[in-house]
């Protein structure tokens, strides 16, 4: 059996409580349970995480590079949409 016959999974790892899951990479696995275990071995061996999600890559709908302009360009020149005018209180680390 080669990895070609196994579906691809996207791996999301939460590095600490309170943070959100972040995309860590992808891997091949025969099913979700094994994907979770492979993800544990590939992406959290050096205590990078406290929680893992695996998602079949085929279930992800991605924006197309062709749509880049209508999707993202309009927000580039609107600084008032960014919360840059607030002072961040001391002690707030993950904002």
């Amino acid at each position: 059996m080669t990895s070609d016959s196994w579906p691809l999974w996207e791996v999301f790892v939460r590095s600490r409580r309170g943070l959100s899951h972040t995309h860590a990479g992808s891997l091949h696995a025969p099913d979700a349970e094994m994907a979770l275990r492979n993800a544990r071995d590939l992406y959290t061996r050096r205590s990078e995480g406290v929680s893992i999600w695996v998602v079949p890559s085929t279930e992800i709908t991605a924006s197309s590079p062709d749509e880049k302009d209508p999707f993202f360009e309009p927000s580039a020149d609107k600084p008032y949409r960014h919360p840059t005018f607030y002072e961040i209180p001391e002690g707030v680390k993950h904002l």
Partner: protein
Amino acid sequence: MSTPDTRETAGPGVETSAITAAALALGDDALVLSHRLGEWAGSAPVLEEEVALANIALDLLGQARILLSLVGDEDELAYLREERSFRNAQLVEQPNGDFAHTIARQLYFSTYQHLLYGQLAAGDGPFAGLAAKAVKEVAYHQDHAEHWTLRLGDGTPESHDRMQRACDTLWRYTGELFQPVDGLDLDHTAMESAWLDSVTAVLTKATLTVPTGPRTGAWAAGAGRQGLHTESFGRMLAEMQHLHRSHPGATW
């Protein structure tokens, strides 16, 4: 070539106690299985599984280092002992075979090791600290082996046949795991019956037949703890030790 016997490595005037004998048995189990699993590096069925097996091997190597350090110099013990001085059970030295053999060996051994470390961690003996840490590692090894046993046993006709053959072949090496070891005050009978229950449950769920061959007695294996090993072990040791023996004291 002279064999550094464990009494010598423990240092002059240091008696090889029952505790060092036990550390040697458990340490050699971990060391030898670690090396066997390491042999998959570069040839595992898939990249993901190669990393999984290497991770398990590294967990075991860590356990071996702690245990062998209780006995003497870890490098001398690993690289300069002759075959007859190793005290590992014969199960762990069995060749990797096909992937099913490796998984069957993992299932049998990790189920035993999980029970063993569980008992040691619950006690207050010299291995309690090590066992408390290792029992979590081994719980994962057992989980890994169980998941693969289910998938191979309840997979295709070929994977089922191969897994059944592997379970049957290695069955006779499992009785030795429950022979009393000097220095370990454990309830081996309870451990063995818990082991049988656990392995039976996994094999049954995997649609495999629990092997019926002997696990103890004249037709079973089981003198590894006395220093008697099977044929392939010598070759494995030669590979494991040749670098250190050819270049003594080499560092990197």
